[in-house]
């Protein structure tokens, strides 16, 4: 099949439709607007529903209702809107409902701006809402990868009965790249025997996160923790780009990783052993990727579009037995390859403080 040119935000929409998602609830916010625009057109064509809510607070609760009724459902937003959804996300986890939440990250805190950023990493990976919970966070770095990951996002949500977040940024959402959509596959959505759809002759079903008796809530939390442990064991994903023999390993995701790849290429041309680990899952963080590197790499340099959030996970993953440096741009500014290259040079020359 021929490649077509697609915007990242539109690719999320098409990827969702191809993954069998037929319900989208959203509220306008920049820089993810092309996604609701796309689905407002596309959903009616496939017998689905696009509904614009009155707020992100309402949106995530519509998702809760639709997911509980057995639908493949998603919503999308950016920083401030995702903040408003946090209570609802906590309820979705508590009630064990599958859904996909897209965050096309922008600069914060507060109103910040509408330019691309990665500063919602903590919120995404630490559970911005209340209570003991986790969710898988996928971080694509190209439009093609967005298409490919959307199917996985819905499947993982179903497998664990837990929300999955797709974390992109304004650059990924806005840029156009050629993509291969592939054949439209018949989507098999797993049965949902737990859904509350009206009893229709069967047992009563309840969608709920309330366990008023402490003994019961503790049991519920322990059961959820077992799911999260399984995710940590089974779902770590990353791309290893020339990291195996690298003296210095860059660590970056999404748009920042694209910049870092260019830096790796330049270093390799110059004979410098530099590589990249690109986490595809921000949670579970790909700790497994770092274990073999502790024997080979002398330094790690984390590059983020924030003041340094993922760097904490890199320090944990390397157990701090190698120096972990940080380089970041924020507020909607992008790391420039030349500057990252300069930071790499400094570390290799032994001149960079940790």
């Amino acid at each position, binding site marked *: 099949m021929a490649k077509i040119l697609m915007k990242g935000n539109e690719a999320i929409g098409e990827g969702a439709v191809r993954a069998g998602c037929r319900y989208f609830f959203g509220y306008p916010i920049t820089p993810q607007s092309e996604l609701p625009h796309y689905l407002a057109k596309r959903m009616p064509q496939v017998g689905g529903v696009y509904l614009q809510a009155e707020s992100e607070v309402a*949106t995530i609760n519509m998702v809760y209702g639709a997911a*509980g009724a057995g639908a493949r459902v998603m919503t999308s937003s950016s920083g401030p809107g995702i903040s408003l959804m946090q209570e609802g996300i906590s309820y979705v986890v508590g009630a064990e409902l599958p859904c996909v939440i897209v965050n096309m990250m922008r600069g914060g805190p507060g109103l910040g701006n509408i330019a691309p950023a990665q500063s919602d990493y903590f919120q995404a990976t630490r559970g911005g809402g209340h209570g003991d919970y986790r969710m898988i966070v996928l971080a694509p770095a190209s439009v093609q990868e967005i298409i490919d990951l959307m199917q996985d996002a819905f499947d993982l949500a179903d497998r664990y009965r837990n929300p999955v977040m797709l974390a992109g940024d304004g650059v990924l959402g806005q840029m156009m790249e050629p993509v291969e959509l592939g054949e439209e596959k018949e989507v098999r959505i797993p049965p949902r025997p737990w859904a509350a759809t009206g009893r229709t002759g069967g047992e009563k079903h309840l969608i709920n996160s309330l366990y008023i008796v402490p003994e019961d809530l503790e049991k519920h939390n322990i059961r959820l923790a077992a799911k999260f442990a399984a995710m940590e064991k089974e779902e770590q994903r990353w791309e290893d780009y020339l990291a195996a023999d690298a003296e210095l390993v860059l660590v970056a995701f999404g748009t920042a990783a694209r910049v870092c790849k260019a830096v790796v290429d330049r270093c390799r041309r110059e004979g410098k052993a530099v590589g990249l680990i690109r986490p595809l899952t921000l949670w579970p963080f790909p700790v497994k990727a770092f274990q073999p590197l502790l024997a080979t790499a002398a330094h790690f340099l984390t590059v983020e579009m924030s003041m340094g959030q993922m760097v904490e996970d890199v320090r944990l993953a390397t157990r701090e037995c190698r120096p972990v440096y940080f380089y970041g741009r924020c507020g909607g500014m992008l790391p420039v390859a030349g500057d990252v290259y300069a930071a790499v040079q400094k570390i290799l020359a032994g001149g960079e403080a940790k």
Partner: protein
Amino acid sequence: MMQKVFTRPRTLKDVPTHYCPGCTHGIVHRLVAEAIDELNVFDRTIGVAPVGCSVFAYNYFDCDMYEASHGRAPAVATGIKRVLPDRVVFTYQGDGDLAAIGTGEVVHAAARGEKITVIFINNAIYAMTGGQMAPTTLIGQKTTTTPYGRDRELNGSPVKICEMLGVLDGAAYIARVSVHNPANVVKAKKAIKRAFEVQMAGHGFTLVEVLSACPTNWGLAPDEALRWLADNMVPYYPLGEYKAPEEI
């Protein structure tokens, strides 16, 4: 041969409730359950009960149920109904839930004409959390957060939901009823059943506000509470249909 002339509705479970003595939640639960039984939709009804005294409504209604976050039941019901348009969906919300934290959700569910039925319990107080002022608390009414009585200057005036929602085009049936005496209980039942019928006919959003008693947090005996409701709430919150489709 004895004939059984009165029994528990199918839609209600045979369990004791946690409600206080003299609380009217039990009456309203029964009216909703009777309406569902009489319309023969028990098997395809889905209820949503958010945070409040009735958060455990799922223990009493035997149909499929959702517990929802505070104020968001109309959004949850929207998600359900959009996925399952042939089901009957109702929410059961208190006044703090619907008329304060959840105002946005109920207004926009009504504006969109969501084909759901909202049962709105107005007892002029936050009961579960210990008797604080609700948006519906009357001027002068003492609560734990208005110990000198609700002051118009400080707290503003009570919110009249039926009057507000009645002006929206998406609202198909809006009524206010009371359960302070048997005659009004009968009227309340009629309104609740009618709301479900209007939902099922696909006319749009439906809501029944039920003026209810909270003896515990009002600090009154159950019979005094019912008199207080009739004497104080009914004059401020006039009973009747605020909107109804002609053909039903």
